[in-house]
């Protein structure tokens, strides 16, 4: 192998690793400290905001919370392609509530802000609509409770999936 190839590979490796290290180190700056005692305590105190990487640590492997299962379904079915979790700073206060703070997404991955809102924002849906029965009916047949809605009718979701999804929505305070 010619030397310049070895050199080029080394250069690329160095660039990759240095960018990786920079970003991981730099990310701590943006309010993303590794799970401190305080963060773990906070997680215990608060109702879960959904799935996060520390869930397994606290719940024990294989025992995720119902709401965290709901978040995986929220991602799997692509709900986030229309429902943002990002009330905007300039408007939205009347209907969708206050914009998120860093704490709203702390330790969440993915953060699911969304980019293409074609449906109501859900960041505070758990405070806005607490009627679980409404959610169950709405997911099976959206146009039965909201005429004019373009939400897909999720007739294929199992009852377990629905329970988890509604638990997740309820956790979004």
């Amino acid at each position, binding site marked *: 192998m010619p030397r310049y190839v070895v050199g080029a590979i080394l250069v690329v490796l160095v660039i990759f690793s240095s960018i990786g290290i920079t*970003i991981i180190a730099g990310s701590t700056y943006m309010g993303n400290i590794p799970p401190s005692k305080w963060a773990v305590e906070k997680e215990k105190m608060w109702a879960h905001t959904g799935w996060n990487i520390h869930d397994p640590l606290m719940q024990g492997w294989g025992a995720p919370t119902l709401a965290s299962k709901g978040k995986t379904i929220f991602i799997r079915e692509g709900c986030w392609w229309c429902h943002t979790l990002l009330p905007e700073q300039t408007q939205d206060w009347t209907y969708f509530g206050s914009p*998120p703070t860093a704490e709203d997404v702390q*330790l969440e991955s993915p953060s699911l802000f969304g980019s293409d809102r074609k449906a109501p924002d859900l960041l505070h849906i758990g405070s806005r609509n607490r009627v679980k029965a409404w959610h169950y009916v709405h997911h099976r047949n959206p146009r039965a409770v909201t005429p004019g809605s373009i939400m897909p009718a999720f007739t294929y979701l199992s009852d377990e999936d629905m329970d988890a999804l509604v638990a997740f929505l309820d956790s979004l305070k």
Partner: protein
Amino acid sequence: MSFLTENDYAEGTAAKNFFFSAIVMLVIGTMLAIITSFRLAWPDIFPNDIPWLHFGRVRPVHVHFVIFGWIFMAFAGAMCYITPALCKTKLWSERLGFWNCWAWNIGMVVVFFTLINGLTTGREYQDLIWPVDIYVLLFMLLPLAVNVWMTMLSRRVEGLYVTLWFFGAACLFIILTYFIGAIPDFFPVTGLSEAYMTWWHAHNVLGLWITPVSAAIAYYIIPKISGNTLYSHKIGHLHFWSIAAFYSTPGAHHLMGAPIPEWLKSFASVSGVLIMIPALAFVVNMLMTMKDKWWMFTKNISLQWALTGVLFAIPLNIQGAFQQTRTLNWYIHGTHWIVAHAHLALLGFSTFIEIGAIYYGLPKLLKRKIYSLKLAKIHFWLTAIGFLGFWIALTGGGLVQGAAKVYEIPYIESVIATHPYMVGRAVFGLMIIFAQPLFLYNMVMTAKYGERQESKPVIEDKIIPAAT
């Protein structure tokens, strides 16, 4: 590495394979859009019991097929064709290029089945799960980059034409961008850091790969077909370096409403406006290259596509520069306006240039004339009119949604108000969708029955004389 460079594959094999695969991906990718666009206009039009026919499942597949399948593979084909031509040499390894193409097609199959089944990271434009990320990096992007770089290193000319700067740099940019964007899939990067990296990646896939490579292709085919020399290499320099400087930093302007630091938003917003510099440098350079040759615009089908793509770059970049500033972003953020803008970039600007490149390069590679110019014209007008109607419908719908946000009417009212726009989008979208199989048919028939013409082998292709 002799097993890679052994010459048992005919010249142009890699490029031909990439071009045909890309066209197939274009057909599939646009077909998938029937499901998404119809679902938004008439939500119960398809059976609701089948998850594969739901909007949330199909949308990412559509996005990945048109971006990773069509645009990326058309780029790869163009790179395998143009790089040797400008270096006056053969492609470093046709064998690597050939297997890269098939690895890519296998990758697209994996992408389809993972995303349609809901196996996704939930991060826009970085939707693929981590094993697929590794596959994309190692078997799709890296072999292409190696092939392009090694061809450039074994060139038989001294100078590098503008196109080659972009190809060489973009191959590095896309690997870095994809790797950095995938970091939250591998490491515990969470919260705002995750959001920022997701959007940094989403921005730079466009900024450091799709935009510069599309431009690089235009830099080759427009002077080549028109017979003019490039208007200015200095403007080319400005374009190249300002892309690297300004297009790599504004990732945060996708998060103007999110609680990321305000200084970061301001920084991203200012560099977002500065993207006007590379964008206008490119447009000016291309339009001035056409000096005295504008009659060819309607006569040559490749030029017609490519120049239309260049013209779409004007509204695209003016929109892009200003819609992300605080002044406008609060109004149009997250509305259909943005979807219209994304299609203007990927379908209007990028796709038009690549289709131009394929109408130019593929018949040359096949040593045949285009089977039916009439069909190519029909393809052009269906796509162009379909796209314009589509874009106007979505932009209008976006403005309606923006107004609804300001007056804070109940959300459902804005959904009902945008229904006609969604119908318009679906109908004009159908025009685009029906045009693409014509393209595939035309190219297959060119390969089979096109009139033979002796074209010079790629290696003797005359390099474009440099102007200063």
